[in-house]
């Protein structure tokens, strides 16, 4: 999978590139709008990460030209402005998704995965990690031979972690995807932490192997084996 990053801020481009490398993507960085457009036009990519505020040529212009030339590579736009106009304009011009800076890398990685997976059937009814199994239809979960007694919220939380197993999940993603709160607030962060503690107690307490890990300052990850 090849990803093109069009971003003039070198440090940010490097950070994103190394995160994507960690997930085994091939990454190409273009630091100007012209270079970015040239590469996107000439080479084949599976995804373009496009900064909107670029020196020389604006990201939205590049996006527009690409779409006019029927280059349908998925595009994720990165905007520093929290303005609704930018977002709407970007999506209207054919962007597939957007992220507002400053964004968390787990969030970016999740969006990238979602865009690259798009179009493929990914709906599973059973999720599994080590000896943890979830049946989404019957809505029950077992760890080894132990049936987990989960509340509805805990069940949704575990499902989300399992769907993203091996990947970091930020509180922001949980707030939006599990709690369906469009806006992250401090009280909600506390609620997430408490729920996560309870869930971990139910899932990991009596087990030999810990599955749910807290990554300080970033979020949570469900994965088998120690990192």
């Amino acid at each position: 999978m090849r990803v093109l990053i069009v971003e003039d801020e070198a440090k940010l481009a490097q950070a994103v590139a190394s995160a994507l490398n960690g997930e085994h993507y091939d990454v190409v960085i273009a630091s100007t709008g012209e270079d970015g457009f040239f590469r996107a036009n000439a080479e084949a990519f599976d995804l373009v990460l496009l900064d909107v505020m670029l020196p020389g040529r604006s990201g939205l212009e590049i996006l527009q030209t690409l779409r006019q030339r029927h280059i349908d590579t998925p595009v994720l736009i990165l905007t520093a402005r929290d303005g609704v106009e930018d977002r709407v304009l970007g999506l209207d011009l054919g962007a597939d998704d957007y992220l507002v800076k400053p964004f968390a890398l787990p969030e970016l990685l999740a969006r990238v995965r979602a865009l690259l997976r798009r179009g493929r059937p990914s709906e599973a009814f059973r999720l599994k990690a080590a000896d943890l199994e979830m049946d989404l239809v019957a809505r029950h979960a077992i760890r080894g031979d132990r049936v987990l007694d989960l509340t509805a919220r805990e069940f949704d939380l575990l499902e989300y972690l399992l769907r993203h197993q091996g990947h970091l999940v930020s509180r922001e993603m949980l707030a939006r995807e599990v709690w369906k709160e469009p806006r992250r607030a401090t009280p909600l962060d506390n609620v997430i932490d408490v729920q996560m503690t309870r869930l971990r107690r139910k899932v990991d307490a009596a087990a030999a192997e810990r599955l749910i890990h807290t990554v300080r300052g970033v979020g949570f990850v469900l994965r088998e084996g120690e990192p």
Partner: protein
Amino acid sequence: MKVPFSAASIRVKMTGWYTAALSLMLIVYAAATFLAVRQEFQESLDDQLHDDFESVEGLLTPTPDGRVAWSGDRRHEPDDDEERGSDVWSPSGDQIGRSGASQALPPVALATAGAQARYDSLVASGRRWRTLTGTTLVGGRSVVLRVSRSEERLREQLSEVLKVLVLGLPLVILLAGLSGYVLARRALAPIDHLAVEARRVTAERLHERVSVPNQHDEIGRLAAVINDTFARLESSFDKLRRFTADASHELRTPLAVIRGIGEAGLVETRSPDEYKEAIGSMLEEIDRLSTLVDTLLRLSHGDAGSVHLARESLDLDQLVRELVASLSVLAEERRQSISIQAQETVPVCADRLVLREAITNVLDNAIKYSPIGASIAVIVHADGDCGVVEVADQGPGISPEHRERIFDRFFRVDSARSRDTGGSGLGLAIAKWAVEINGGSIGVNAAVTGGSVFRISLPRGNV
């Protein structure tokens, strides 16, 4: 350069309007006076003619031969020769007598002379005359009698009156305008004075006030209003100053922590786990910093009025239950219980997201400041045109002098309270903003159970 009237000073405008109104009234008054005088003159002339008619009547005597004779002095008023005259005709048209200036007048058409005496105005040999013509019986014989008087003297007098009125009017108007100008200037002088004083009060000297000479007159009231505005301006300047200081403090603290951790981490080589710990801790601070910046940005959007609200009618009771359910885990951690006492369906009109935030912050506040094991009471009810949520906690309570400021940005009752329990210091500020932008109000009082009651009141919806 000519100054358009609308741009002229109030003084000039007042004088202009005053003069125009006065002129109009004077002109109407003068015209009425003139007309009344003319009427009076005319009537007195007619009265004189009537007297003349009667005296001429007395001079006519029947002669033995059955005719009528003009007896006595033909010129009864010798001086008035030019001014008046009289004619007598027999019914057959013979002139029986004539006197004075009557020669100038044309003879009367006898057929028109009825029994009723008649006044006429006519012009003869360049002069205006007023005549009274009538038929009278002298010794059984009827004769036609006409007396006449010149109108010239009357006209002269009238034109005299007119001259006085027309020449006097502009003079009076001029005097009135001048005194009006002087009066306006005197009346407006305190306003100029006020402007000079108000200009002295600047951002640097906002504590100064304009003087109020007499608080009961118009200028005094204006000065009081200006002072009131200055007071509010001063308080918002103070607020802004405090806010800027607090905000930079709040922003600097995480920055200092990040820097400290980074520097300490680089001083000596540590284990990978220690590095991870350090980086994680830096990220936490960064997270706190970005939440703070986001919140400030949102508040400033709110201040600028650039927040789009999607107000709808929603059930306050249901919303509160939802939020309590969502936050109840926090209370459970502190072994607190939250009780909800609610009327069924209390519809309010508000933006759901914004209102959620307000109530969430108030509930979170109650949980945070109530001790372990406390109980928190939430009451939802309708009150007149409002839907009301009350959240009673068992926290330390808020002293009356802090009750207003508790909603200020970054205000903390206990300034020593650490960031960890104190949150960002923006929760209640956000709640206040969120409630007020929805047309509601928020306040805090002492609870009977100890602690505080936060009361949010919102305009009713129409579910």
